[in-house]
């Protein structure tokens, strides 16, 4: 009973933390564009938070530069369980266009576990909103408790 209540609350209010791990800003701007009135991701309870301690979903962009690797791990560790990671953009998914560079790890999933990918360079705001909704649907179906 209590568990299902918590799950319901979690699905209705996924607070997100946005972290730039070396992206070109394209994806970051599109994430913000998903929060403005045209799409209004807030109607799904999506709220942008400033600290990892408040966040349920970590929205990452960028190919993870050598400098940001440790910082990404630290931010991920600070998030309370259960936590979910959504990767936005091609370079966050696989390294994308920066693959092969000396300063790039190549994808968020080389550093922390990832739950959902939103491909595109950059993806449209609707695609980003859709990615988060799909993640919520998979939590609803079961998935990680």
């Amino acid at each position, binding site marked *: 009973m209590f568990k299902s209540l918590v799950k319901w609350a979690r699905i209705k209010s996924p607070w997100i933390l946005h972290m730039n791990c070396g992206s*070109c*800003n*394209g994806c970051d701007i*599109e994430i913000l*564009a998903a929060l403005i*009135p045209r799409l209004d991701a807030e109607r799904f309870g999506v709220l942008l938070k400033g600290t990892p301690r408040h966040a349920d979903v970590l929205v990452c962009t960028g190919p993870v530069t050598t400098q940001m690797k440790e*910082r990404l791990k630290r931010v991920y560790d600070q998030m309370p369980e259960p936590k979910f990671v959504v990767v936005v953009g091609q370079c966050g998914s696989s390294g994308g266009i920066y693959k092969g*560079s000396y300063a790039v790890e190549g994808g968020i999933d080389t550093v922390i576990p990832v739950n959902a990918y939103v491909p595109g360079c950059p993806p449209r705001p609707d695609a980003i909103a859709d990615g988060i909704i799909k993640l919520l649907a998979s939590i609803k179906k079961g998935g990680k408790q």
Partner: protein
Amino acid sequence: MGYVKLPIGPQHPALKEPENFTITLDGERVVNVDIRIGYIHRGIEKLMETRTYTQNLYLVERICGICSYAHVYNFTQNVEEILGLQIPKRAEYIRTLFLELERLHSHFLWLGVAGHEIGFDTLFMYTWQDREVVQDLLEMISGNRVNYAMNAIGGVRRDVSQEHRKKVLESMDYLEKRAEFYKNVAINEKTILARAENVGILKPQVALRLTAVGPTARASGISVDIRKDDPYASYLDTPFEVITTDTNDVLGRVVVRVLEIVESIKIIRYLMEHLPEGDILKKAPRKIPEGESISHTEAPRGEDIHYLHSNGTEKPDRYKVRTPTLANLPATAEMLKETYLADVPIIVAAIDPCMGCMDRVLLLKDGQEKPGELISGEQLRRYGIKWYAERGWNA
């Protein structure tokens, strides 16, 4: 009383991108600022040397996701200069259209971010709603909202049709009304005046000494605009004015950008009404002859300089980028001194920082961690070649 050192960043709610400001405080007053950059260094310059010119068109676009077109424009201008290629007039006009549309969306974006930083989120929602109008235009013509992939070496990829022209002109009418509204807001709204007036003072002589560029310099009364000083694309044909204010503060930077929106709308109208007929693309060879070229443009944030050295192959020998944010950072450190801690986010935001553009250096002298070493460009180059050779890639 002793000073307090406050580290802000790299991951911080007030910063949209990873960077670090170590602020020395005397109570609420900022005494000194140490800016540490390099968190988003992706090694783009080195990567460019390993890819062909056509591949580089896409890579150079991704230096920055906001002023992406300014970077591509610089790159193609450099290559075309070495080739001695004169691109068709229509292509020049379409390129200028994109440069200006980009300035529009970037300035709207900035206005929203500035509003957000002073806790005026209504302005953020308003301007971003209007920015979508520009984004729709960009998407309509190029097919993508952010990285347009419009340029090819020798021209542009997509043409502007009659319907596009009509739609652009219609949207400009709407945006002009909105720009008037924002002008009113910037000058009269108490929330903005209280937070922006006499904050982040940058005196003209200091701005000159610290090489401030773009709207930051223009808000200090320095009339620098590459579009006027060294006209490129079709800016020679287009009538427009360089906007300057002499208030030297954050409010001045708001006003300069709002008025530049109005100027950009004028330029776009002119371009759409005088669009010449003709081809949009000239065929260019794959191999670029030996030579070097330097190109600078007025990106939305200021002067953006690209340098290309080619060696007669399909790949560049050396590519160098200096983005406007890097030029504005020393001035930012100066602006932050003797202000209050609460004003730090808006002062930093006022230069419209784009850290993703800027990080060209990785090895830094870092006082806190173990002391790094500074190496010369030549050493870095050798290190890069070795690094790639070890992995079996040809550098």
